[in-house]
């Protein structure tokens, strides 16, 4: 199933002005309102405290120091200490609350995303690289966290500090405030020009970096082609071009910053100059005090410092927004099949395909008007060449896909009417490639942490897997490595059979593994399969002649259709497709 995933289209750039996106992000905090308001409240109060300090200093200078009353100093100093400690405490609480808020939100989001993924149909998983889903659940969700903590809270903190500083300055002396803030319009103008340039430059750099990475990736993975055609020098030249373009783009970016930061610095100093220029006149006119002037010197620092931070935070926020966009795209993906409400499977069990045709999205038809049925206790082998549609047929039985035309009936109800979980809870599917989880053997048989060890052992004995399991150091509790790497191919197949039997399925769907195993295990597998086919209602995509012979009935698939049906002997006598496959000794 090649081709790019049709499910996740995520190259939309995130915009700051995307109101819907913001509402969406905010709504994540909806059931954490208490914590959110607590953090917000702390934010509003904690930013005020640093601004009280210059006022205290002013009081100290204009009071005890000016009047030379040494004994009046302690209250001021106590207040200073109190301010410092309570300010620190509030800030601590605020930072903690906001981080906690962010972590709680993303934890919940992650769990919800994972739950959502569980409901997606198999086509989604077949076409979407696992790595990409891991990035969504990992890095991207984490970026959202930094959006809440560093981004939103810190950014509003910096903005609040600026607003508070202005208010305090005007409150203290509006004339001096006007004087020190006279440079502000100028600053806003230059900042907006700066931001626009940086934004443009960043876009350009992103494009060049992508180009550079893809060129590098290609040159390295295709290094033998480069070598055979003697193109190393060309590749180096090409790489040098994009590498130096990237460098030049950075040069431009660095230039903007090199203009901007000295500019900010100078404005801070100029506002000090304006402050003292007006301040001196006002002081001589007895309109202001020395303490006020010193306090104002402090305020200008508090006002201008957060400005630097803002431009950094905005950049960080931008990439977090893009991550948020990607996460929401995944969250909004509709890739589930309709869920029915029937939970009880018919007894006796009966499954029927009625003129079923099927095509994968955007693909050609792989099944055409397939009809057959299977009753309780029967076993049916499906054979055919590679690509004849056998595996698809199995997938339709367990409602991984719905037919494009025709009906799959369980009892007399269409398969859509059944709840997926209930249906599959009574079926067992063994795919060709046995997947074992990095858990204990018992977990892998029971597919649940609450396994019944005696039953696990019973089914393992039944399929003759008990011998090798008990020879393992921790027996049934031996943890398996990822994908069961510490087991042989044959042992994995035996475990898959045990897993299916543990489920006590009404219908067993088995895509026989083609992986070669040693002769001894091969014997065990054939024996176990033979037993299972006699005992359980089974549809098996068969590759081994022994399996085919053990089945009650054989369906021969060819190019998406059932072309022949019958017993081994009947089919051989027909001298058709089955006979040819038999001659080839190749059942796909």
């Amino acid at each position, binding site marked *: 199933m090649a081709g790019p995933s049709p499910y996740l289209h995520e190259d939309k750039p995130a915009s700051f002005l995307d109101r819907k996106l913001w509402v969406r992000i905010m709504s994540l905090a909806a059931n954490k309102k208490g914590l959110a308001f607590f953090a917000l409240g702390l934010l509003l109060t904690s930013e005020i405290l640093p601004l009280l300090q210059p006022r205290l200093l002013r009081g100290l200078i204009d009071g005890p120091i000016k009047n030379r009353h040494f004994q009046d100093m302690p209250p001021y100093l106590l207040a200073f200490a109190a301010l410092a400690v309570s300010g620190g405490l509030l*800030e601590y609480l605020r930072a903690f609350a906001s981080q906690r808020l962010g972590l709680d939100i993303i934890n919940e989001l992650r769990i919800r995303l*994972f739950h959502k993924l*569980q409901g997606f149909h*198999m086509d989604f998983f077949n076409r979407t690289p696992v790595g990409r889903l891991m990035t969504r659940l990992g890095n991207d969700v984490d970026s959202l966290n930094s959006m809440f903590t560093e981004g939103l809270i810190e950014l509003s903190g910096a903005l609040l500090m600026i607003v508070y500083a202005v208010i305090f300055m005007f409150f203290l002396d509006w004339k001096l405030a006007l004087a020190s803030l006279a440079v502000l319009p100028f600053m806003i103008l230059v900042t907006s020009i700066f931001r626009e340039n940086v934004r443009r430059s960043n876009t350009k750099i992103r494009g060049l970096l992508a180009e550079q990475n*893809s060129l590098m990736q290609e040159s390295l993975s295709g290094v033998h082609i480069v070598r055979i055609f003697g193109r190393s020098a060309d590749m180096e030249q090409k790489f040098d071009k994009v590498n130096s373009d990237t460098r030049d783009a950075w040069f431009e970016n660095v230039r903007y910053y090199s203009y901007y930061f000295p500019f900010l610095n100078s404005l801070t100093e100029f506002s000090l100059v304006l402050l003292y220029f007006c301040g001196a006149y006002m002081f001589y006119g007895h309109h202001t005090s020395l303490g006020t002037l010193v306090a104002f010197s402090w305020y200008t620092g508090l006002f201008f410092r957060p400005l630097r931070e803002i431009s950094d935070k905005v950049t960080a926020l931008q990439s977090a927004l893009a991550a948020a966009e990607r996460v929401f795209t995944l969250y909004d993906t509709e890739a589930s099949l309709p869920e029915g409400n029937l939970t009880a499977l018919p007894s006796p069990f009966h499954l029927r395909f009625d003129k079923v045709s099927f095509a994968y999205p955007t693909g050609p038809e792989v099944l055409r008007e397939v009809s057959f049925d299977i009753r309780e206790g029967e076993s049916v082998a499906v054979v055919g060449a590679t690509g004849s549609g056998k595996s698809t047929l199995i997938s339709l039985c367990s409602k991984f896909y719905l037919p494009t035309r025709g009906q799959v009936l369980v009892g007399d109800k269409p398969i859509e009417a059944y709840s997926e979980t209930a249906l599959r809870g009574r079926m067992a*599917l063994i795919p060709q490639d046995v997947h074992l989880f990095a858990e204990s053997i018992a977990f892998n048989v029971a*597919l649940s942490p609450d396994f019944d060890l005696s039953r696990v052992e019973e089914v393992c004995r039944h399929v003759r897997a008990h011998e090798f399991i008990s020879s393992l150091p921790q027996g049934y509790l031996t943890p398996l490595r990822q994908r069961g790497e510490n087991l042989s191919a044959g042992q994995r197949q035996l475990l898959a059979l045990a897993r299916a039997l543990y489920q006590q399925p009404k219908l067993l769907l088995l895509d026989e593994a083609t992986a070669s195993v040693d002769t001894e295990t091969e014997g065990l597998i054939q024996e176990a399969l033979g037993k299972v086919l006699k005992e359980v209602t089974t549809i098996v995509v068969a590759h081994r002649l022994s399996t085919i012979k053990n089945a009650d009935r054989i369906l021969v698939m060819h190019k998406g259709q059932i072309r022949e049906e019958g017993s081994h002997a009947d089919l051989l006598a027909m001298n058709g497709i089955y006979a040819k496959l038999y001659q080839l000794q190749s059942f796909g």
Partner: protein
Amino acid sequence: MSAPKKTFAERWTYLRPYLWEHRVPIFWGWIFVVVSTALDQVSPWMVKVILDSLQSGSAMPKIMQCLAVIVAVTLVSAILLFYQRLWVIQASRQMEYSLRKDLFAGLMVQPKAFFDRQTVGDLMSRSTNDLDRIRDMIGPVVLHLARMGCLLIFTAVCIFLLHPKLLLTGLLPSLVMPIAANIFLKKMYAHFGGIQKNLSALNAYVQDTLSGMQVVKGFGRSQPFEEKFRGASEELRKSSLRVALFNASIWPAIGVLGVIGVAFSAWYGGRMVIQNQITLGTLSAAILYLLRLQFPLIGLGWVASMVQRANVSIDRLIHLKDSFLAPVHRASPPPSSTSTTPEFESLSVRSLGFSYDGKTPVLDGISFSLERGGSLGIVGPTGCGKTTLLHLLCGLYPPPPHSLNLNGRERADVSDEDWRQHFSYAPQDGFLFSTTIRENILFGGDEKPPMTVEQVADWAGLSRDLPQFPNGYESMLGEKGINLSGGQRQRVGLSRALLSPAPVLCLDDTLSALDAETEEVVLENLRRLFRQRCLIIAAHRYSAVMHCDRILYLDRGRIVEQGTHEELLRLNGAYAAVWEKQRLSESLETV
């Protein structure tokens, strides 16, 4: 891949040539750092003078002078700041460029054997993440460090000049800051390890579950897996929260220390003012100096962590460089139209053996010879050594001595470049680059009429698909040619090989995705084109090799059967058995 820790000297040796190359801007940048930081100390001092003048009665001219000094100093300092930033940061970007360029050039001349031991992702992360960190250290981090150092010294000098006693009261708490921050950060990094561990556990779990989705869904067992995921996510949240606790306490703690320093100075200095030991202006200036020191000091923690990370990155790059093998001869651009096309007389292979790891033989005792105009087919089960044999012939791996002989000359006596020019190669998967189809074909060599892009594409059977490409041969391909079908990729790869003037063409199962009819047409073209040259065809489908002068059947690296198609059929061995199967499956196709 974790790299062994290097000594400072080794790191220095690695970076020195790059730093030396940019010594001029870096030197001047640093001089400017020193001067501008010194100039920054002027304005608080002027505030002192102004405040003192204000108290001493009418002194407007003097105040104006002071303000003028601030303006002048600010302007000069702004210019210096501009250039120091521009020079140092641009130098770091230039160094990043050179480092990356050298890394890429170094990789391009590595033999194929080197790439067999590395993953592309790993090499990519060297070139991106690791180089980024080194650049950040050389640029902003060192710049910040230099500014910090100067600032500390100059501030201390200024406060000392104001009054020696103020230095003690004011600076002491500030000095605790970087030390405290460092201790805090170290603790935090320990907790960071916890986050990393839980995060990779979560990632592994997601990967494990999602790759086994067919089982999870097939048994209707989402619930236990969701519960386990919830647990892992919860663990991650908890460990992140522990770091958050630390994180949340650092900055407020530093802030508190700073304010206490100011308060302490105000109290102690205030007493000195009252006792007429210093003026109010002096005290205010001291406080201004302290306030200016506060935020840069906080940055020290950041500097420490960045240096640490950059060191790890340098070590990884040195380790990579150490693992480089002897470089192959750097290929010069393909021969221009004036140079002669390489000639081919004969190729002989004598008991050629090969092993990737020096233990398991992949090829063993392979011998055959080819004359001008000859053709050779190579068949055998997957993993029998077909591709390795072709790669050896094309010169991707060094063969054992005396095993390869071209036109009567031993491999060892021919330069890499000379050898290479005799072979061209078309891989099974095309291996295309993300550029236009035309550029991909031109990768093989220059157009020399009648060998044009259109012509070779026609011979390779690509031209019939032309209407499917939106912009004809100018259509852009995605990474690895993802927007083409497998058969189209193969034919672009074949066109590329055909444009090369090399006399020996190696096909590595290049026609496998073509239908029988197209395959026959393309093979017919090839046979005609290479009548005076030589064709080597490795294939799974025997229809591709049945017309070859000689066919080798390989199994586990050895020649098991050989001869013409007819001879091999008569032999009735492995070749004949597979041929019969293939014929049967073909007839099944037409049922």
